[in-house]
């Protein structure tokens, strides 16, 4: 049997488990209600309406995606150990690294389903509210949604990494802190570099900023709504660097997760 097959079997089983569970479905219904609610935004001028819809729509996909990634991800490995479902799996010809990668790809699959379903609702709301009068479809929205998906995959890789050595409570806390710091990295950075901040705080915030992923750089909302950039690629490539950095985070997080899990006693 190939090395790849067990990874995708574990990933598929992980996705099945989450789809048949309650958490994802409840949160998706909640997201759908938010997006439908955004259609009833009060009458303002068309430009403002578009900005509000894009801002709230992408925010719902990002925030809800992150909540789903954390709530479904933190149990993926600790839950298997606590429920002892891990033992029959690892007594089969499955290597530990295959299990870790399987869990990551399962999480990536769940992120994909979440983003896809919410994006479909978002685009439907966008079309119903704006698309009827303005037939020009904004392709930047698709790129923004894909970047959100990439962002959630980075978050999932970090959750998997934490869960290989932390309890589920520790994993939730660490994931939420990373998500918060990464999502407001620029704001926190600006705050930490003020004149009244001491050198120690400045240095530690520099380390934190360099160490943790910059989710804000992957969030295209600001570029679309606030900076109103017409293209993500010219004059500056806003996509390339965050994507490459994101992939590096995923690779490093999974390599460390595999290493730790390989030596962990179960």
């Amino acid at each position, binding site marked *: *049997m190939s090395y790849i097959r067990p990874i995708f*079997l574990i990933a598929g*089983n992980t996705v099945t*488990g989450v789809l048949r569970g309650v958490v994802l479905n409840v949160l998706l219904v909640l997201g759908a209600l938010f997006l439908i609610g955004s259609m009833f935004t009060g009458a303002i001028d068309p430009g403002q309406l578009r900005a509000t819809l894009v801002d709230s729509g992408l925010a719902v996909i990002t925030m809800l995606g992150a909540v789903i990634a954390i709530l479904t991800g933190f149990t993926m490995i600790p839950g298997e150990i606590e429920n002892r479902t891990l*033992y029959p799996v*690892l007594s*089969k010809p*499955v290597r530990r690294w295959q299990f870790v990668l399987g869990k990551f790809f399962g999480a990536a699959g769940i992120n994909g389903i979440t983003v896809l379903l919410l994006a479909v609702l978002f685009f439907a709301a966008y079309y119903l509210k704006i698309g009827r009068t303005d037939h020009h479809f904004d392709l930047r929205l698709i790129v923004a949604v894909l970047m959100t998906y990439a962002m959630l995959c980075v978050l999932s890789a970090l959750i998997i990494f934490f869960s290989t050595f932390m309890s589920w409570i520790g994993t939730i806390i660490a994931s939420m802190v990373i998500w918060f710091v990464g999502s407001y990295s620029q704001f926190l950075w600006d705050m930490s570099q003020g004149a009244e901040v001491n050198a120690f705080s400045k240095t530690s915030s520099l380390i934190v900023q360099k160490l943790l992923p910059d989710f804000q750089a992957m969030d295209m909302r600001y570029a679309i709504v606030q900076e109103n950039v017409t293209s993500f690629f010219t004059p500056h490539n806003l996509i390339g660097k965050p994507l490459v950095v994101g992939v590096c985070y995923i690779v490093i997080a999974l390599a460390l997760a595999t290493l730790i899990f390989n030596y962990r006693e179960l």
Partner: protein
Amino acid sequence: MVATAKSPAVAEPTTNPVVDIRGLSKTYRLMMGKEVNALTDLTLEIKKGETFAIVGPNGSGKTTTMKILLGMLFPTAGEAKLFGYAPGDAEAQRRIGYLPEAPYFYEFLNGRELLEYYGKLCGVPEEVRKSRIDELLKMVDLYDRGADMPIRVYSRGMRQRIGIAQAMINDPDLLILDEPTNGLDPIGTVQVRQFILEQKKQQRTILLCSHLLSEVEAVADRVAILHRGDLIAVGPINELVPESTMWQLVATGLSREGIAAFKDAGLKVEVHGDVVTLLVETLDDAYRGLGIMRDQGGELIELTRPQPTLEEQFLKAVGEESLRRTVDTLQKTARKK
């Protein structure tokens, strides 16, 4: 339950042990530098086709041994090999079927999906998988009722049965069963015992871990007794439980003089109301006792050779070991003083 036919195993020299454990030790390091020895210098061999049981009270090191064999724990010293491979090696895992203690499976899957999943993980070819799943579901009596039910609604017995089926999905050469009858009702216990006996007939190697000694006695060829991480006895059941040479006579209707006659003849008697029990070590003494009983007008109601059970041997061995440890500790304390 019925047996599945064991396909011819990969040719293997009969001299090579299936499980080879040499000097295996495991120490758990706790907080504040405290250490607990879970297993000390364990050496064991399990041969092909053998049903081997590890018995011991809670905390004796049974589960630690199994977890090391499965690659879940790492030994502090010594080594273990399965089919010549290190624990956790995929080549070894391919030939193992494992039933964990109180098994928990993915609750969102039904019985058939669960077997399908594990079958795929084991690399069982699709053309074989479907028929084997049907066969196993029939074997564990879940084919008609349970195969399409989610595991979250399974009873304890059904979980144990699907656990047995998943352990058999890859037609393993070595079955590792951790407390297979734990929590089962008497019917379930008998079914599991029958299952083990059927597998034994198929020459499958079985490593059984249990604290139910009657269960072990009924199925195992050899037994290892563990106590606080130490191997205190190992051997075939008939060696660990030697054949009794004692005779027991039970009689009623004996007068005081009759009872005194046994004592006068140097025979030891126990009296409980009207019932007199005579325990003698040789057949000659048994004949003598019978003669006195007839002469004194007693009525023989039972003549038996009471066999010691594994449980008695186990308690004896564990008791001796505990006594030895206590003496050692006292001696060490005395020396320190």
